[in-house]
């Protein structure tokens, strides 16, 4: 048992937390502004695929990363327009985006790379294994500062709590929400890019495998606050790291079922949502399109 608690476990935890953290911080901006973002999974996939594809063609991971960010924002803009301009149900729109982003990368990779859903291998020199990690963890204090120490953050929080009040104070509610959702697309895009050109070296079909939802879980577990969200991401990253290390390890002749470790984030989130551990209070206007009262 002992040999698994080594330095490598710490590194592994940090690396596995990184995509979660990037997506969760993205979700934080969107949800603090009042727009539910269950599309994080799809946004990450957009970032992951685009970053890998562009890196393959351009031979430069920085261009790939930038493309991943732009792709995340482009897809997020669909969510934004549907939810803000057309007042579509935010959960339904998010679900649609997630389905869309299973299809689009597969469709495109079939067309461009003649494969069913993956991009070609990217050479090791063209990967960025650590930069996104640094970005992710630097973004935590930055997000805290933006949220609580800048006019932008004040307006963002106001829009998510009481859009009517923000509107009356001369703040453009929809403008803030567009900005927030696009920002979430950019961050989730980095998170996705890290998966394809950081942790691994190609895009594979549905490679996020639920990380967008774990990020959402971490956001709720962290009660929509940056530092707590980071801690939640580290916890969930840690469970993933453990589950990898425990694969094939036998305790008293019995294999430890991986599944039980995998479900920890989900169970914890339900426990928190049900109020068994403290109260998770969501932004008050979360999920509600802004409509001027009559």
């Amino acid at each position, binding site marked *: 048992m002992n040999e698994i608690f080594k330095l490598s476990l710490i590194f592994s935890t940090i690396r596995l937390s990184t995509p979660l953290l990037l997506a969760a911080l993205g979700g934080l901006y969107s949800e603090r502004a009042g727009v539910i973002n269950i599309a994080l999974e799809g946004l990450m996939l957009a970032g992951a695929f685009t970053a890998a594809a562009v890196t393959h063609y351009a031979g430069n991971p920085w261009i790939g990363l930038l493309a991943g960010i732009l792709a995340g924002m482009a897809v997020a803009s669909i969510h934004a327009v549907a939810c803000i301009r057309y007042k*579509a149900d935010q959960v339904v729109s998010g679900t649609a985006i997630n389905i869309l982003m299973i299809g689009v990368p597969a469709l495109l990779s079939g067309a*461009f790379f003649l494969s069913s859903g993956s991009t070609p291998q990217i050479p090791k020199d063209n990967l960025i294994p650590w930069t996104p990690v640094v970005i992710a963890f630097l973004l935590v204090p930055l997000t805290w500062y933006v949220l609580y120490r800048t006019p932008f953050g004040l307006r963002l929080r106001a829009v998510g709590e009481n859009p009517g009040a923000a509107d009356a104070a001369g703040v453009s509610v929809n403008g803030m929400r567009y900005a927030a959702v696009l920002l979430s697309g950019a961050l989730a895009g980095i998170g996705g890019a890290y998966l394809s050109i950081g942790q691994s070296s190609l895009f594979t079909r549905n490679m996020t495998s639920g990380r967008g939802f774990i990020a959402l879980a971490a956001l709720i577990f962290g009660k929509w606050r940056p530092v707590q969200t980071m801690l939640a991401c580290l916890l969930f990253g840690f469970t993933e790291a453990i589950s990898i290390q425990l694969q094939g390890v036998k305790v008293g002749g019995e294999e430890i079922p991986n599944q039980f470790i995998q479900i920890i984030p989900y169970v914890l989130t339900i426990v928190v949502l*049900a109020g068994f551990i403290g109260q998770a209070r969501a932004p008050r206007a979360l999920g509600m399109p802004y409509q001027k009262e009559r």
Partner: protein
Amino acid sequence: MKLLRELLFPLVAVAAAFVVGGIVVLLIGDDPIYTYKLLIGSALSWPDGIGRTLFYATPLIFTGLAVAVAFRCGLLNIGAEGQLYVAAFATAWVSIKLGGTVVDVFGTPVNYSWASLPAVLLVPLAILTAIVVGGAWGAIAGYLKAYFGAHEVITTIMLNFIAVALVSYFTQYHYKVPGDPILQTAPIGAAAHIPRLSAFIPGLPESIPLNVAFILALLACALVYVFLWRTKWGYEIRATGANPTAAEYGGISIRKQIVLAMAVSGGLAGMVGVNEVLGYHHRYYDSFSENYGFTGIAVALLGRNHPVGIIFSALLFGMLQRGAIPVDAFTEHVSKDLVQVLQAIVILFVAAEAAFRGSFGRFGLLKRSKV
């Protein structure tokens, strides 16, 4: 006039999705007309196309109904996926444990069962198991919402992952035939098999997996209609969805309705297990669902959350799924994933349009709980 309006928007959404999808096809270098011809033509060919279209539509009718029942109560059940997995596993478990001796993947007769029930008992029992277990899994989310204010959208997402992990654990560690390389359970007893429709319809080859579950799906549509619009229970569920404070005033317990609606919803989703396990795979097969739970959202939305509409939209999506196979094979670039894209676009259009007409505006319950 009213009917026309109800029909118009879904049709526009579908047409718009096909247009956008066509542009995508064009951009990746194929001929959209040819692609769509291939897709629709093959899906409507007799008997193979139609048979399989109906087969693919079957689970979608169930999940569409599941989403619709919850929606009528003001709830968004995106947990049909998890509900159908636990139900499918449970129905397989019952059919293994009470199904007598079977022949496993290696051709060896084995007996994992406690008893060997005849078909007249085993089939109804297996179906009931699917409904009850799916319903119970759905009711968890309902209960958490009703009594703890936990938003059903988030809890059902989480419960999906938990469901998948749990059934995969049981399959892998307890019910797999030792040595089987595929993650699936032992086969279910032959008495639990439900007949394919090829037995009743002349000209339909036996290779088409369309089975009695399709008839059950149509029956479920009728039952859901009667339940929602002709019983006091349905009235209470719809009243809760339409205006929870007025329902409360009318002496209706909102909490009970939430749990009931989620249970009924989960039970309907659970019926997918009947199609897949009793009618098709004849075993629980890990990750068998082609996103049926999520596609159910599209089916319900497009079908206006009404059983009749759901039949039509399930047929449409079943058709897409069937037609995607030749598209994959016979076009140069387009893969079967075009279907996902079309589905997503349909949902986006319908969702934005539904909000237009205010039919989402009365998410009374959504406002009352934590997300």
